[in-house]
């Protein structure tokens, strides 16, 4: 098992290297630069700035310098958020995004899984159609529509919850962004769980379980649930990585200081180091989550073993 983990981590290095290299050069190919603003800077100042950040060097040189720093754990300074290093920005924003995203995923599982199971058990009944229509709605309506409506209804009209702001992570401030973020995930998970549950319930060993005289509850809980969860688990890896690295839309709408906004703002501002930092962070997290999912798979399914 340990050697498998080490092997997987070793294979992650070339993956990340390719991601970093492609993003580095793509970013530089894009027109504009970090110091292009509405006000044209005098050429001497721009030259000075570029010298400070080594942007005057040839591109391969910059690449090597960046990689060297990266190996030493240094993401470099942010070009836009002066006085902050990229590491500091990520470390500030990530815990916030992680909290919101983690809660959203937990909520999605807590609601999505049972909904999917119920829909599968009551297949083609009113309950099934109801759940699946809701799920379809959840997928179809983007969160930049749902979030402002929720803020308007619960924050402004009803005044039950704050319409925005972080407030140090107080729970009333968490509710709306977490719910808004989880709606789409609930929908995905419920649909996936329904499909997978229906497939599992049609399998031969479920027929065996019924032939043993177990009741439907026992059949589902003891025999069907675990195999039916496998596809959901493999979806969760990348999904969690995506969600805990922050949703730009949700963070903008509710004014949450997570790292999602850095992705977009960094790209718009041509804040090379910030974009690279977030890309590397996101890439590493995806790799890590996929590894965790595969390990969890081996716990869930005894047919999968990673020993030598």
């Amino acid at each position: 098992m340990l050697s498998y983990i080490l092997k997987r981590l070793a294979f992650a290095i070339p993956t990340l290297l390719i991601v970093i290299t492609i993003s580095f050069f793509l970013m530089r190919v894009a027109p504009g630069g970090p110091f292009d603003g509405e006000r044209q800077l005098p050429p001497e100042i721009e030259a000075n700035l570029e010298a400070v950040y080594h942007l005057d060097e040839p591109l391969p040189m910059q690449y090597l310098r960046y990689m060297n720093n990266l190996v030493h754990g240094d993401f470099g300074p942010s070009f836009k958020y002066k006085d902050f290093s990229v590491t500091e920005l990520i470390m500030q924003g990530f815990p916030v995004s992680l909290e919101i995203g983690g809660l959203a995923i937990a909520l999605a599982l807590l609601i999505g899984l049972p909904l999917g199971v119920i829909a599968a058990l009551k297949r083609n009944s009113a309950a099934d159609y109801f759940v699946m229509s809701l799920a379809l709605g959840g997928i179809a309506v983007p969160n930049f529509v749902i979030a402002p409506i929720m803020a308007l209804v619960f924050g402004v009209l009803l005044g039950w919850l704050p319409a925005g702001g972080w407030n140090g992570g107080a729970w009333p401030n968490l509710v709306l962004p977490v719910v808004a973020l989880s709606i789409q995930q609930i929908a995905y998970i419920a649909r996936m769980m329904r499909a997978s549950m229906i497939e599992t319930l049609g399998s031969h060993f479920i027929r065996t379980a019924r032939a043993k005289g177990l009741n439907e509850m026992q059949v589902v809980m003891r025999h069907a649930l675990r195999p039916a969860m496998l596809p959901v688990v493999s979806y969760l890896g990348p999904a969690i990585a995506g969600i805990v690295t922050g949703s730009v839309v949700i963070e903008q709408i509710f004014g949450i200081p997570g790292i999602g906004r850095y992705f977009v703002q960094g790209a718009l501002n041509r804040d090379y180091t910030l974009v690279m930092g977030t890309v590397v962070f996101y890439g590493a997290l995806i790799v890590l989550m996929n590894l965790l999912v595969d390990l969890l798979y081996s716990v869930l399914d005894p047919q999968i073993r990673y020993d030598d």
Partner: protein
Amino acid sequence: MSALLDISHLTVSFDLPTGAVEAVKDVSFQVPAGETVALVGESGSGKSVTSTAIMRLLPDLARIEGEIRFDGQVLNRLSPKAIRRLRGNDIGMIFQEPMTSLNPMHRIGRQIGEVLRRHKGMNGDQARTRVLELLTQVGIPEPERRIQSYPHELSGGQRQRVMIAMALACDPKLLIADEPTTALDVTVQAQILQLLKSLQQRYGMAILFITHDLTLVRHFADRVCVMQHGHLVESGLTREVFDAPQHAYTRMLLAAEPKGRKVPVNEDSPLVLDARDIRVRFTTKRRMFGPDDTFEAVRGISLKVKRGQTVGIVGESGSGKSTLGRALLRLLPSEGTIAFDQQALEGLDQKALRPLRSRLQVVFQDPFGSLSPRMTVGEIISEGLRVHHPELSRRERDARVVEALKDVSLDPAMRARYPHEFSGGQRQRIAIARAVVLKPEFLLLDEPTSALDRSVQVTVVELLRDLQQKYDMTYLFISHDLAVVRAMSDTVLVMKNGEVVESGTTEAIFDHPSMPYTQALIEASFLNRAA
């Protein structure tokens, strides 16, 4: 005599969106306590629906009419709760698919113990003791260790033994065995049937034995019920039905053993295939350092085939017979030398082999999976012509397709249809037409009849023999079914663990097998007695 199971006027229909479909029509029969009753029929005859209806395990859209009386209770009127008390307790059931009928995620000890805890209220320790006892009874070696195993760690035969242990855990009065040995090798099949027989004597239970295989019925059942298209066409004591079948369908089934022998080839017929010391290795585990772990599936087999000859290759699953066949056609990399029509195949890459492919064709086992569902039958058959004979005009190609369909006794007008519109036997004919349209000299037939009903098998065997005569083809015929091999082959190769155990003419192998393994195979397939 009051029977343990008394089925009267059973009709099962399925409410499909396209209308109700009756799968079982007004079927009545009885299973006396302690006896074995066989329910026989070909696919689609309704025998499995009948057995599943007894356990009330049919999907919700099934409607049951008539009466299923078991031990004084009418099963089809019991509440769901009451029927659950009977399932696994008074009525045990084993299924056709031992590979998938056990939950892959639970240890077998827990799966068997679950029935005991459910019905007998046993605690963990009591259940464990009983499970060990059961595993010993069904002949699982090292039960103490095996109780901890997951299903995927057991062979097919062992899994079916576990299923039997589970079905017998609560001493049922009735065991429903739905094709319990169909997915197993013949020698394993014989062992499982033996086991069921001895357990039946020990516990005095009745067995409802569902099968398509009449040879098994003759050796196993006291009574037999024959079903066709949902109707019960004949029933009675096994001996009587076999000796004096009343219904035409029963007579047809009984006559459905592949008969006749192949016309032998001339002594001076030229050599078509000459393979020496063929070895096939599979890598089971790749290592970064040091040599990979390998498994040798074929271990140094030499083989000579004359033009017009059929070489039958028999052996149980995992014996390497399919691997050998594929290696000979260079569909798998192998060691050793292969000469086809005096041309060495072993040095050629896939591109160099391509012109030869039209002369070397294959028909696979699964007539459902090996035809592309999105292509019409005409397109499937003509595809090889497009590749190998691009010079043909569309009209000429179509003429060849028509000819090939006539060769396999299918209506050429069917070439615009898709594979799903055909039955298993028809699909296998299409697969044969696809190979034959190229006028191959050498045809690899890999279990071409295994997925088919007996009566259909017979016609496919005859078809293959006729085509061989007509086009002077050479066959390599792979099968685990000895009756079919005997009817098809000039010589037979018996394989086990990648090696040839015995080879010789068909007569020599079947009439005077010299090796114990060959004797066991022939014994287990009941050939010597049925023929």
